[in-house]
């Protein structure tokens, strides 16, 4: 066999792993790899900041279900990837990051652009490697893709010393990966399935508590089938929007801090939570000791460490949630033949909550633009096949609330880490992964100013994303907390972004079309204008009212029982039979 450089071995390995696109920026330590990349069939998108490369890889992974790949140099290149790696870990996104490292003999000497990126990412990466011998490159890449994409997906970092890229080696891509300490279990335990089916038939108030794992496992069809079979209500978390159609009559909406009254109360009053790929996050449970106190729990998850972590599970089903549902559906059918519980009183209660407390908002009295209205119209005009990404803040919550999601992989956001700046680069990656689909990023004026430079990348690389800036001239979500909990003392939350920057001009400067809209009557025409431009990225500056707040709300650290539908306004519980 002829010898190749470690760099060539890396690129051959990436090709063998099935990579078709990667996002990155070169630099000294990774430079040897960029020479064979020049000749590779893998598309390399040259970004403007490594954070953009990381979130683009995430966006690509979220829409395609494949592993997203990003690549950077040592030191600052690698540390710029830390945020997207942590983000991918929190949201269980399959991702492989390749970084160059200083030459092996220089490691530990505080060499130029040396940073211990393996050490830095150890607490959150699913796994990571430091490669100093070129012979180890193919195996490390094969293992990295295997680990990232199987079990509970997550980010894997492969850090490669520069001399390992330069030396000659044999290229042998392993045909199989066998890791003694990593054998994720896909098939559920038969007894656990039987116990789950049994528990379900004993429940008169069950709720399907659906998390992002259902989307990761492509189990949305099975979810639809089991929900229809049992006829029980469903809630979809922030990470699971789209896993179950919003139009379905059994859907109560999103639970959690800004969830619907029906979804939050449904979980609270349930006698059984059928938990599918969800993790009892504090943003869903509120004060944990008061969460769903009368409910038994069936917890289906691929990660054994999620079981009993926050909430005790009466029945734990460890496995891929698609396999789990495929086993549970026939078991439940059989169990229901023997014992069909009457869920109609429970459904009546839930439907009453749903109709009494729909999501809503007030139009500003001064005729200015309401952010919720803009987002609602974006959803309606763009339709259910559109992919939406968002930043973090009020606009994120409104995008989760006021857009109807009918399909999985159409809603991408930073749920676990809450990373401002996610929307634009994630939209870029999503559009690369789904070039024929309309991709809208719904972004805040604050978030947009963190990562908008990737619009240059989009403009130059024919990645025509659409960006709706919900410009409330402030760090709106933080301002909302200041309104509610700090007596309206607005310390450092005013961005003045209706004065500076001029977003449409900024967009034009980056090679995009810049539009602006500040009157309700212009919203539809502006969205339609943006929808008609498909050969360039478009940025719309929606100049909205700044005092709008996100409701309902369960204040941090309080009980879900204390959900508020407006300032100092609880639902009228006396009018509900619960």
């Amino acid at each position, binding site marked *: 066999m002829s010898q190749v450089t470690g760099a060539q071995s890396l690129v051959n390995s990436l090709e063998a792993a099935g990579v078709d696109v990667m996002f990155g920026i070169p630099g000294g330590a990774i430079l040897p790899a960029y020479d064979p990349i020049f000749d590779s069939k893998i598309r390399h998108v040259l970004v403007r900041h490594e954070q953009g490369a990381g979130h683009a890889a995430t966006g690509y992974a979220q829409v395609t279900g494949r592993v997203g790949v990003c690549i950077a140099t040592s030191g600052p290149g690698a540390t710029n990837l830390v945020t997207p790696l942590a983000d991918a870990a929190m949201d269980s996104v399959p991702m492989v990051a390749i970084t160059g490292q200083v030459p092996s003999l220089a490691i530990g000497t505080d060499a130029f652009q040396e940073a211990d990126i393996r050490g830095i990412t150890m607490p959150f990466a699913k*796994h990571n490697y430091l490669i100093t011998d070129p012979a180890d490159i193919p195996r490390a890449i094969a293992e990295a893709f295997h680990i990232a994409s199987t079990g509970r997906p997550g980010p894997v970092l492969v850090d490669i010393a520069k001399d390992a890229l330069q030396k000659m080696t044999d290229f042998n891509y392993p045909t199989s990966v066998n890791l003694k*300490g990593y054998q994720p279990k896909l098939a559920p335990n038969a007894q*656990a399935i039987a116990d789950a089916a049994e528990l379900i038939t004993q429940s008169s108030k069950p709720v399907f508590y659906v998390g992002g794992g259902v989307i990761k496992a492509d189990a949305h069809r099975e979810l639809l089938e089991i929900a229809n079979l049992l006829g029980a209500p469903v809630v979809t978390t922030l990470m699971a929007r789209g896993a179950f159609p919003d139009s379905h009559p059994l859907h109560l909406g999103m639970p959690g801090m800004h969830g619907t009254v029906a979804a939050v109360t449904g979980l609270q009053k349930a006698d059984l939570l059928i938990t599918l790929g969800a993790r009892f996050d504090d943003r869903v449970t509120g004060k944990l000791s008061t969460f769903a106190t009368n409910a038994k729990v069936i917890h289906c998850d691929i990660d054994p460490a999620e079981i009993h972590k926050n909430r005790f599970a009466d029945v734990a089903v460890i496995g891929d949630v698609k396999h789990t549902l495929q086993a549970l559906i026939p078991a439940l059918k059989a169990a229901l033949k023997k014992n069909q519980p009457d869920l109609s009183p429970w459904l009546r209660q839930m439907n009453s909550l749903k109709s009494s407390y729909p999501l809503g908002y007030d139009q500003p009295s001064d005729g200015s633009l309401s952010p919720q209205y803009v987002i609602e119209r974006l959803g309606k005009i763009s339709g259910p096949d559109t992919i939406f990404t968002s930043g973090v803040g009020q606009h994120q919550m409104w995008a989760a609330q006021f857009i109807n999601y009918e399909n999985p992989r159409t809603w991408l956001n930073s749920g676990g880490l809450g990373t401002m700046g996610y929307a634009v680069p994630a939209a870029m990656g999503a559009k690369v992964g789904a070039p024929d689909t309309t991709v809208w990023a719904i972004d805040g004026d604050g978030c947009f100013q963190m990562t908008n430079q990737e619009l240059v990348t989009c403009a130059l690389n024919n990645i025509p994303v659409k960006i709706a800036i919900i410009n409330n001239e402030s760090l709106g979500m933080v301002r909302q907390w200041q309104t509610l909990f700090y007596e309206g003392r607005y310390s450092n939350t005013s961005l003045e972004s209706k004065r500076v920057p001029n977003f449409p001009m900024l967009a034009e400067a980056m090679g995009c079309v810049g539009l602006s809209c500040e009157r309700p009557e212009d919203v539809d025409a502006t969205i339609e204008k943006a929808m008609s431009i498909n050969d360039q990225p478009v940025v719309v500056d929606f100049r909205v009212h700044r005092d709008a707040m996100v409701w309902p709300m369960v204040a941090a650290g309080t009980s879900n029982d204390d959900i508020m539908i407006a300032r100092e306004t609880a639902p009228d519980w006396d009018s509900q039979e619960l």
Partner: protein
Amino acid sequence: MAQHTLEVLVENSPGVLARVAGLFSRRAYNIERLTVGPTANPEVSQMDIVVSVEGHALEQVIAQLDKLINVIAIKEIKPESAPEVHDTQPDYQN
């Protein structure tokens, strides 16, 4: 808090001690004692870890340790009985 002794077989790869120690610090588990030694297999080392935890928390510690790719097997050494085996296949569910 009760003390528990875990016998952990790990791949003898660079950084594995940092991974285990880092896990304990990040998840705020208390390590009372930790020793590392060789096994008959040069590719595998053994860590003996004494932790102080209550109730379900021990299961969490074991499950989180199990998630480390370089951790091959975990045994809990009970003072006066046979060791309870936790291999990396999570068969302790339910």
